[in-house]
Structures are given as structure tokens and as C-alpha cells.
């Protein structure tokens, strides 16, 4: 083998070896955010061939609408998004009927006043509050954040020692781990409970719960203003899925992932085609290069 090709192959071989070591030497996905515990879940949409589970997205929307929407806006989504391919894909007529059940502010009319009218699919999801100040006033000063991008606005930090971190990165790149957001959301929604008596903060100081705050294993600082939003049997699923807290948490986290990344399915399927095309191109280019260089001693 020519020197330069040997070098390239050597580099690739060493990279694969490191990846193998990294993948083999790691526990099954245990990461933490500022000391809190966040486990990696199995998601239907993870990996190269991962796609959304349409029924799960529909259940997740139901949970959002019935439970979360009373405090959390999703202002980047429109009703018509619910009918799009690659998402919950509700039927068009259903979406139109759903939109019409909402009163959307419009105007001003000819007398200069704002008025409410029945929603249409092109309308955005209405916010539960008129503005941030009103939201805070209704929630003891805490602002329930908008959920449109929550699944991409949160992640899982790596607290591993520095010599392991590069292997974690290689593992995450090779497995295309992009589900830190849903993992975190699931952890928070299922992380409520009683604060353990000897709970310590990351710096060693004992945890002091503030007035009106709720203990949560996964939330940074372990105290969250939102009271536990989910409980068993809270929402009735029509497709027979278990009416449990864990199921609600998983479904709504998946729904939020779609809400943040509605083009996920198109992105991954296009990615497979592009990757195959490029790999074939690499092979063709390599053969062409070899042939040309075979003409001269090198």
C-alpha cells in the first residue's frame, strides 16, 4: 500500500478502535446536568432510522392540550402543523374543527376594537396568558416557559472525567444522540417526590427547600416552581395506552420533540439517501484516484 493511503487507513482504523473502546467501556447512558440525575431513555425517533410514532405524537398532543396548555404557550406552532406529514398527522377536517373550538384574538375591527373569532388552521396556538407579566402574576412570580423549542433548549451535560469525555463524544456522534432534551423533560416530569432528608447540593451544602417550591430529582438546583403536573389516570387515552404518569411523560416528551423539530423525519430520510450517494461517490473517487496515480511512480 502506498504510504499516503496507509496513513489514511491508519487514521481511520485508529479512530474506529477508539470508538470501539469508547462504546464498550461505557455504562448504559448515565449522564447528569449540574449534579442532577438524567437517564437516557429509548425513543422511537432516535438513531439513523428513528421516526416518530404517530400515535404517540397524537397522545402527546392530547396531554399538552389537556394539562400543559393551561399555563404553557407554544407560540411557534400553528394548528395546520398538526395535520402535516411527519407529525401527529391528524386528518385535515379534524384540525379545522379543533381550530374552530379556540377563540383567537383578531382585529382591530372598524370601530377600533380587538375581537375574538373562531380559529382557523393557519392560526398559531393561542397563549394562555396575554403577556409574560400576566403569566407571572398567575403563577406566584414564576414564568411558565414557552414549550415550542423546549426539547432542543435543554440538554444533558457530561460530568465524566476528562480522559473519558472524548470517548463519550465519539459514542454520541456515532449513535447520533440528539435526545438530550426529551431525556431531560422525561426526567423532570417523572422526577418529583419527597426531598431526601440528607440531600446535598453539588457543592456539598445541604439542600434548603424554599417556600412554595417543589423537590425534583432532575431539575437544576433540585427545586422547581411548577407543582407536579402529571399523575396516573389524569388523561384518558382513546387508543388503550396505559394511563400512567410515565406514559404521559414519555408521550408529551415525544410530542415536544416533534414540536421543536417537525422536520426530523424528512431530515433523517434525506440523510440516508445523501450518505449513500456520498459513500458511492467516495468509492468512485478513490478508484479514479488510484487509477490515475498508478501511471506514475509515487
Amino acid at each position, binding site marked *: 500500500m502506498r*504510504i*499516503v493511503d496507509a*496513513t*489514511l487507513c491508519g487514521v481511520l482504523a485508529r479512530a474506529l478502535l477508539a470508538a470501539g473502546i469508547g462504546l464498550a467501556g461505557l455504562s448504559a447512558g448515565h449522564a447528569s446536568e*449540574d449534579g442532577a440525575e438524567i437517564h437516557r431513555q429509548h425513543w422511537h425517533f432516535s438513531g*439513523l432510522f428513528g421516526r416518530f410514532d404517530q400515535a404517540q405524537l397524537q397522545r402527546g398532543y392530547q396531554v399538552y392540550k389537556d394539562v400543559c396548555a393551561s399555563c404553557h404557550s407554544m407560540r*411557534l406552532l400553528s394548528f395546520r*402543523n398538526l395535520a402535516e406529514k411527519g407529525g401527529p398527522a391528524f386528518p385535515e377536517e379534524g384540525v379545522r374543527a379543533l381550530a374552530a373550538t379556540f377563540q383567537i384574538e383578531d382585529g382591530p375591527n372598524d370601530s377600533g376594537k380587538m375581537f375574538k373569532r373562531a380559529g382557523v388552521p393557519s392560526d398559531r396556538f393561542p397563549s394562555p396568558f396575554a403577556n409574560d407579566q400576566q403569566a407571572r402574576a398567575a403563577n406566584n412570580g414564576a414564568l411558565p*416557559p414557552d414549550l*415550542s*423549542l423546549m426539547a*432542543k*433548549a*435543554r*440538554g444533558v451535560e457530561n460530568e465524566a472525567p*476528562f480522559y473519558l*469525555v472524548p470517548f463519550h463524544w465519539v459514542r*454520541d*456522534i456515532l449513535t*447520533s*444522540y*440528539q435526545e*438530550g*432534551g426529551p431525556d431531560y423533560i422525561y426526567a423532570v416530569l417523572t422526577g418529583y417526590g419527597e426531598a431526601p432528608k440528607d440531600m446535598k447540593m453539588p457543592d456539598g451544602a445541604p439542600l434548603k427547600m424554599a417556600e412554595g417550591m417543589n423537590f425534583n430529582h432532575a431539575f*437544576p438546583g433540585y427545586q422547581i416552581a411548577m407543582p407536579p403536573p402529571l399523575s396516573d389516570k389524569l388523561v384518558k387515552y382513546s387508543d388503550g395506552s396505559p394511563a400512567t404518569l410515565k406514559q404521559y411523560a414519555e408521550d408529551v416528551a415525544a410530542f415536544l420533540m416533534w414540536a*421543536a423539530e*417537525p*422536520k426530523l423525519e*424528512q*431530515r*433523517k430520510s*434525506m*440523510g*440516508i439517501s*445523501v*450518505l449513500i450517494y*456520498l*459513500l458511492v*461517490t*467516495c468509492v468512485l*473517487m*478513490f478508484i*479514479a*484516484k488510484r487509477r*490515475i*496515480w498508478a*501511471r*506514475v*511512480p*509515487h
Partner: protein
Amino acid sequence: MANHESSFKPTTGFGRWMDQRLPVARLAHDSFVSFPTPRNLGYLWTFGGILTFCLMVQIVTGIVLAMHYVASPTGAFDSVEHIMRDVNYGWLIRYVHAVGGSMFFFAVYVHMFRGLYYGSYKAPREVLWILGVIIFLVMMATAFMGYSLPWGQMSFWAVTVITNFFSALDSIIPGIGTAIMQWLRGGFAVTGVTLNRFFSLHYLLPFVLAGVVGLHVWALHVAGQNNPTGLDIKSDSDSVPMHPYATMKDLFALAVFAVVFAWFVFFAPNFLGDPINYVEANPLQTPPHIVPEWYFLPFYAILRAIPNKLLGVLAMFGSIAILAFLPWLDTSRVRSAKYRPTYRVFFWLFVVACLALGYLGAKPPEGAYVFWARVFTIYYFAFFMLILPLLGILETPKRMPGSITEAVLGKGGAGQIKGAAAASEKR
């Protein structure tokens, strides 16, 4: 270009006509077709072509994004989401542009480390190297301003922190730093005014970059490419015509690079970024960890390693500026690290130092992290200011081959090449 006879012969009437008026085809032929390229170049020499590709990708995707982007503090964040959700293939173009920035820096770092290892900055390529440093600086400015445009939390706070640096100059001349800072920002704090001007400059600088790249390639073609032995091309047997030998190798390397690029774009587009930038900018709430994008981390670590604000800023800018003096700091008469065994050790330690500084740049500035950041910062500057000047004088290099041909093919190499050339001519 400066030294070679042009062998270009126009084949059409139009070609001859143009050749007498504006010999563009001749220039292209002499620079990229018949140009003598060392026959022993490795894959590390394909990154120049890869970088050109990256620049073109960024410009094309950037111009398209600018058709939909709104550069106002109330509209920017939503316009980016509009691109991601509603614009046809907007998600693709946005992710290519964002990942492309990172790929651009990855390629430029490989390109720069190649130069450091093989002595590509040494005479007569000093101007080529300095043009490269200028390109690197313009890239950093462009990337910094581009990152501010989505107007997320990190966009806003990174601009606040970086523009704050200039207020450090107040300790030299009272008031001057604050004046410069307010001039940059267009106000007392970072606002939509800042965003608007950053958008304008972010659109401008890539074209400035393209111009400097033109000068960079011109300077390269005057001296010719370096090669792993560091020896100059002395005879025809040392080189091959750029096309098809180097061009096909470049295309192959580009295809491999594109595979990595595509992997990130389609399967891990947010891996290299920070989730907090998906939260809209809030001037009243600072994120818990302000961290620049990965390609700025080593310099950020150097900045924070120095306890004094002004000295930290000077050290950070100095760590880049010192690159420009490299051709004169390195006193060795031997170009390539292939024949400099002692330098090689320090070089790889330097690589480790840069990687370590990158890791530390993302960590909170406390405890052991601060200590190690200082250690590696000291090594970083010592490498340029102490080790390189001394090594040239003290090191004994290995025996070097007589020519590139000898290095590639051994003592009878020239005969082999003549034989192969004669054989191909018979056909």
C-alpha cells in the same frame, strides 16, 4: 507562476482571441492544471481545497438564508424558526450553514497544524503564512457575528461578553475602552442596533475573505507547495502536474469530508451547538454557563487563565497575533518536522495543550481547571517564544534526502520516473 514557462496552447479561435486580450484560461491552466505539484503530498495537503469548498458552501447557504432572515431583536429568533419550519428546505439550508461553520474551523485547524508540522511558514512562504493568519482572524470575526444573528441566549450574552473586553482598555487610557465598546455596540448595551450592524458585517466579511484567499493562493503559487520532506522542487522528477493528480486526490478527500459533514447535518445537527441558544435572548437573565462555540474555546481558556482583565484580553489576542511572527521565531534551517525529532515531541505537546485548553474553555473557571488552564497557557506561549527559537539552534536534525524524488523512490528514483514517462509516451 513566477518561475514556470506557460505551456498553455488555446485550441479554439475564440480561445486564441481571448488569450491575447485577457488570458484567464491561461492563468487557470498554469495555476491549476499544469502547475508542478510535489509528488509526495499527503492527504493533509487536501485541506486547502476543502477549505475553498467550505467557503463557497457558507456563502451560498448564507445568501439564501439572508433572503428569509429578519435582523431585528423582535424578529430574528422567530425568523430563524420560520426558516426551520416553513421555508422550503429551510431546515436543510440552516443546518448546513451552522454545521458548515464548525466544519470550516475543523478544516482550518488541520490546515494550520499541517503548516506548523512541516514548516510551511518558513521562507519563502512567510507572506503566505501571514495571509493565512489574516484569513483566520477574519473567519473568527465572521463566525462570532454570525453566531449572534439567531438572537438566542448565547448569541446575546456572547456578544455582551466579547464586546465587554474592550472596556479593559480603560486601564490604559481612562474612558477609551468604554468609548470603543459603545462605538462597537451602537449603544450602552447590546441591542438591536448591534444586531443589525453585525448582520451587515457578517454578510460583508466572507467576500473580504474570498479576496484574501485569492492573495493566499497567489502567494502559494509563487513559492509552490511545501511537501512532507520540506525540500524544494529541484527537477521535473520531483513533481507531477496538478491535474489530474492533485485534483483527483483533492476530490476524493473532499468526498470523505462531505461524508462527515453530511453525518452532522442530517443526524447530529445540534451536537456542536449549545441548547441554550434555542431560548430567545433575555437581557435580564444570564445563562448559568456562558460558553463560546467549540472553535473559540482554547482562546477563551487563555483569556480566563490570566486573573487580570486587561492582561487576559491581551493574552487572548496575543495568542493569535503571535502566529504571524512564527516564520521569524522558528530559527531552524530545516523545514519539516519529519527530520526534527526533538521538535516533533514539543509539537505534539503543543497539540495536546491546544486540545486541553479547548476542554478547559468549556469548564467553569474554578479549582483544578484554573490551574491546568494556566499550565497549558504558559506552554502555549513558551512554545512560540522560547522553544521554537531555542530548538533551531540546539537541535540536531536527522539526515535529509537529497531530493523529493529520492525521498519517495530511493536513490534510483529518478531513473524509475524517466522510465515510466518514456513508457507512457510510447502509447
